[in-house]
């Protein structure tokens, strides 16, 4: 069974790489957004799934990336790929600024602080109106680039998943997990939990920053409400919880299942959709806290690299 995995993965990647040649416009856009969600979910997993520190404001990095890239493209004429990478960098800087003070806080206090983060950023965006366009948003010069963005998003998603694999199989990853298991004992074993949390936090901000920039380019328009919405944080969290936090393929599975469902059924009924997400969170936390893959992992004693 394990032998088949790599060839199957290679095949899947090949199919995905060739898809835009035959795929419809809608299909490409669907996959593009799916890649984005995979990247977001996997990133959230890196901090919250591995260390147990719930990041409620993670979408802030997406927004930061969107605005950084958006401003670079609209005001300075940067090419969008470079601008998106700069968006990733911007997000990491933000993560450093926030993480440095906030990660010293213990679990629940950190969560509260992150909850407020979104709001602070939204206010900041309105304040710096000249740069960001404030409440009326920022427009980018029009460009139809769905296919290149498809590849960019796909590569980012693949990169983050690969990063997750590397981390989970390393001692660095093990130490991150000890923070989740028992932070006091981890410190007694000489692990500087603050530093490890910070590294994980920074790593978890890169991909959201990049895809934020890519999404801005894709939509050709950003406004505060569209890049800092609570629903995106909720969606990220649900995807990871449902698929299996702390696993490698869990976020991918969660993203695929829930995004597909979202597009096909629920996008029309926004409140019902969010209500359902809330219900899923409640159900998963109560009945299946380890998510689908987590449950399978435990039941069949699967390796951690699942």
């Amino acid at each position: 069974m394990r032998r088949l995995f790599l060839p199957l993965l290679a095949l899947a990647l090949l199919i995905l790489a060739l898809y835009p040649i035959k795929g419809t416009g809608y299909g490409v856009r669907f996959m593009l957004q799916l890649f984005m969600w995979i990247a977001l979910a996997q990133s959230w997993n890196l901090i919250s799934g591995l260390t147990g520190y719930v990041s409620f404001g993670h979408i802030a990095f997406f927004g930061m990336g969107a605005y950084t890239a958006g401003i670079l493209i609209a005001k300075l004429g940067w090419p969008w790929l470079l601008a998106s990478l700069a968006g990733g960098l911007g997000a990491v800087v933000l993560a450093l600024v926030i993480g440095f003070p906030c990660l010293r806080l213990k679990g629940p206090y950190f969560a509260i602080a992150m909850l407020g983060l979104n709001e602070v950023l939204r206010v900041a965006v309105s304040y710096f109106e000249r740069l960001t366009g404030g409440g009326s948003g920022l427009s980018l010069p029009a460009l139809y680039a769905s296919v290149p963005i498809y590849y960019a998003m796909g590569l980012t998603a693949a990169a983050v998943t690969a990063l997750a694999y590397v981390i989970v199989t390393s001692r660095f990853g093990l130490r991150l997990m000890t923070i989740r298991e028992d932070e006091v004992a981890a410190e007694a074993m000489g692990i500087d939990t603050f530093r490890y949390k910070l590294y994980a936090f920074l790593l978890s901000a890169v991909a959201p920053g990049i895809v934020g920039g890519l999404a801005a380019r894709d939509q050709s328009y950003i406004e505060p409400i569209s890049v800092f919405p609570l629903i995106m944080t909720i969606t990220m969290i649900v995807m990871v919880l449902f698929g299996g936090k702390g696993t490698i393929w869990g976020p991918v599975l969660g993203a695929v299942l829930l995004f597909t469902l979202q597009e096909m059924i629920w996008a029309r009924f926004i409140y019902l959709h969010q209500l359902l997400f809330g219900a899923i969170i409640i159900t998963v936390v109560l009945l299946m806290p380890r998510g689908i893959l987590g449950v399978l992992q435990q039941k069949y004693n699967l390796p951690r690299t699942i």
Partner: protein
Amino acid sequence: MLGQVIISGLLAGALYSMVALGLGLIFGVMRVLNVSHGPLLMLGAYTTFWLFQWLGLNPYVSLVVSMPLLFLVGLGLQRLFVRRVVDAPELSTLLLTFGISIALVNLAQLAFTADLRSVEFLTGSFVMGPFAFSKSRVIACAFAIVITLGAFVFLKTTRLGKAIRAVSQSREVAQVCGIDVGRIHMLAFGIGSALAAAGGTLVAVMVAIQPEMGQIYTFKSFLVIVLGGAGNYPGALLGGLLLGLIEQMSSLFLTTQINEAVAYVLLVLVLLVRPTGLLKGRAS
């Protein structure tokens, strides 16, 4: 001018204290950070609105409906959901109450729509010498004080109140003393929800009512708890007043836009400098 600001701050602060006490009770007794505290307040506000709309009921009278109603809702939430994660890692309780809050807000969206509502009941101000304060604020403060005092009297003098305080200090010892900890948990969640509902009712007369109105109160309640010390009930009182004062004072110097962010920035600052609270709190 300063006097006006200070008294305004205290008026608002009393309301914050009451609502935060609700959150503080839940946290003190069960170590649960109830992210859905704000939505519970929102439901209280809607209760008042609909009673006003359909029956023309005086909003302040509707307190006797909104508080017991949300008390029961709180009991139900605790019994059905929160009870199961009290001993789980913090991640679980946070996510669970987060999920509940999303569910409540969106239920409200579906049931009530996102249209802004208001309770046009009391307008105008009381003028006292050089000061003028909006009537609804003053009355809200008065009710908040009465309710909060009532809560404290309950905690200090009644058997159940003492049991709640005992469980807040040490669950094991309380159990050994024969206290039914499960019942106390339910009670605490119920009372906490009722206090949130009271906040919602009082606020309904003053602000626009919509499903997302509660979120800012969740946050401010957290802030008050952190200011006053986790698990420190009288501390919540002082913390609320302090928050009210700070907000009003900062509005003198900052634009309204930045003023919104004051509460958040303040929270992070306090958490960094003294996470156990400005007053003597208990480490969580």
